[in-house]
């Protein structure tokens, strides 16, 4: 077990045309479970493969424990990797698949290897599959074998490259818990790559969000969710995504307000404290953000004590526990998560409102000016949709 550190790691492909990983620095503590999350092509897998030694960093250092591993072959790095497509050796049975690493990399006797394989198989509940070939196994079972292959080596670190992407939704959730359980039990430093923000939120001790090869934010799941570093993180983490609207600071009757930039369909009055705190001056372009669960919806504006905005209901998506409403406001669509009891019909007009505490603001470069205020009792106690009439 060891700490893993990436120090200004850059990976360029084919003569600097593509920069897959751009100056990433990251420290993963001993025993920590770090999830690298980002959209396809953001460089998260390349980062992981650089740690594994399957890619060589163009610049920067990678260390595992106290060793700088830059020039080392994968086999000398003492890490185990779980691949998206399992990468089981098709010609070996499960027993040999799991024991292969021990056979190659250690001088253990056959009996010792056998014991270790049995132990790992027991932990993963695949003991009865040991003599099967991979093609006889289901996707979930294959992934367990791949996990077994990683566990049995007792490596310094586990590297997971989207290990659950090929499984169906139910199995994915089950394996998610399983991987988290095993990682905690074995207390091995782990890096887990995924494009699924839900997986990232539920599994990671910390989340590292990447985009375009750059590290956007590293933090505990709730930190990243509630206090995103920038517009990208705000939009990427959370499902459905945060509602966003480009706006411009304007002044009317001596009070500052935000006007939606494109169609002027929304104006949001700002308090004097807010303009002062975030140094907003008329003409500033800022992006408004509000999480769907912070958007309250009612049939009449009287239901709100704060400002509200008229919209039309586009789509109602019942989720059972909640209803998702898609509301059109000018040319933009807003998403709101409301209790299942509130179920307006399509085409009906409705009013949405979000309190200033729930408001996120991003500056012109996309950096966060203001995040949701969690200390406010109004937002911490779950905001519910106002009733019908």
């Amino acid at each position: 077990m060891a700490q893993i550190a990436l120090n200004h790691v850059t990976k360029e492909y084919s003569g600097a045309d593509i920069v897959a990983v751009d100056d990433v620095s990251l420290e993963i503590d001993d025993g920590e479970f770090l999830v690298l999350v980002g959209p396809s092509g953001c460089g998260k897998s390349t980062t992981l493969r650089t740690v594994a030694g399957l890619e060589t960093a163009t610049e920067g250092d990678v260390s595992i424990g106290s060793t700088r591993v830059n020039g080392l072959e994968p086999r000398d790095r003492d890490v185990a990797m779980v691949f998206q497509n399992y990468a089981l050796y098709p010609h070996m049975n499960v027993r040999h698949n799991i024991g292969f690493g021990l056979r190659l990399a250690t001088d253990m006797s056959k009996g010792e290897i056998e014991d270790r394989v049995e132990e790992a198989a027991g932990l993963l509940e695949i003991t009865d599959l040991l003599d099967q070939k991979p093609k006889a196994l289901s996707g979930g079972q294959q992934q367990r074998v791949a996990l077994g292959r990683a566990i049995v080596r007792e490596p310094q670190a586990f590297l997971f490259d989207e290990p659950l992407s090929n499984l169906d939704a139910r199995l994915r959730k089950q394996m998610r818990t399983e991987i988290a359980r095993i990682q905690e039990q074995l207390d091995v430093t782990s890096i887990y790559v995924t494009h699924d923000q839900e997986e990232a939120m539920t599994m990671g001790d910390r989340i590292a969000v990447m985009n375009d090869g750059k590290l956007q934010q590293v933090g505990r799941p709730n930190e990243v969710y509630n206090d995103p570093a920038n517009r990208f993180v705000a939009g990427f983490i959370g499902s459905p995504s945060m509602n966003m609207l480009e706006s411009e600071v304007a002044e009317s009757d001596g009070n500052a307000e935000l006007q939606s930039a494109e169609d002027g369909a929304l104006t949001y009055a700002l308090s004097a404290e807010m303009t002062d705190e975030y140094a907003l001056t008329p003409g500033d372009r800022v992006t408004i953000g509000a999480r769907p669960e912070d958007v309250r919806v009612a049939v009449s504006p009287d239901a709100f004590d704060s400002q509200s905005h008229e919209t039309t209901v586009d789509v109602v998506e019942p989720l059972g526990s909640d209803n998702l409403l898609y509301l059109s406001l000018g040319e933009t669509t807003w998403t709101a998560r409301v209790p299942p009891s509130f179920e307006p019909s399509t085409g009906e007009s409705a009013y949405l409102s979000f309190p200033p505490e729930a408001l996120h603001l991003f500056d012109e470069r996309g950096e966060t000016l203001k995040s949701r205020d969690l200390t406010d009792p109004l937002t911490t106690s779950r905001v519910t949709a106002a009733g019908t009439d």
Partner: protein
Amino acid sequence: MVEHQHTTEISGVPTDAYVGEEPDDMEESILESLPISFEMVLLAPSIITLAVLSIIPLVVMISLSFMEVSFTPIEEQIFVGVENYVDMTNDGNFWDAWKATAVYVGGSLSLQLGLGILISVMLHRVIVGENVFTSIVIMPMMIAPVVVGLLWQFMLDPTFGLYTYLMNQIGLFIDQPILGDPNSAMAAVILMDTWQWTPLIVLIILARLKSIPQHLYEAAQVDGATGFTQFRYVTLPLLKPAIAIALLLRSMDLMRYFAKVFITTGGGPSNTTKIIGLYLYEQALRFFNLGYGSAAGLVLLAVTVLMGLAFVETIMGGAGDDE
């Protein structure tokens, strides 16, 4: 019953529904009135072709192997039972031909397989201009065997052959011609076939190599494999089905090998390169021992089939379930 089902499927409507005299019904009844089922009608052309080209000759050959055939003064066939087969066991030339064949087939197969794997693994690593290299490598395969024989005979000619010249320069074969020496003649014939047919093995193995997923190598690297152990434990086991197919194709071809030896050595010197194919040719078409030749031919067929089965069984584990 089967016939009935299929004819109804063609029209897509159950037969029971047909009571009228619509044109559809006419078509239906033509198909139904055929003495054989519809599938058989479709299969018939290929079955007839196959019968004419191989089944009838095979049957004739089997019957000939129990006959003594003479052409003078008129063609005459006398039933002799298993006499041809008994003669064979006592025929030293027959056994010598098999020995030559064993050396020839064994030598060629191992050389071709070894080189084939080596070349395909190297070609697989070539990133720039892979197609060009592959095309160059497979070129010999495109040449007719007789032409290959002539080409090599020319190259190995004792007076003006390029290869002979090169050999002479390093002090080899100064006293005797390459194709005239009992040892080097067999080696030359094996090399000739290797030159021509290694490319086939390269193609088969290269295709398989390309289908081995890259992530298996990555997993092996992380598991601690070096370049060699990756080849030994990942590449080679996964190549087994391709190797079995290559061996099967080449062994069948090598067993009935004829043209290049006929052109270059004619079986000599002193019968050292008289492989079974050449021996058969002599018996049946030079000495016109058609009965004996047929019997020997059947033995060759049996040996070839058994050899093929052995390759598939031992390498692919029967059903190829190593996949």
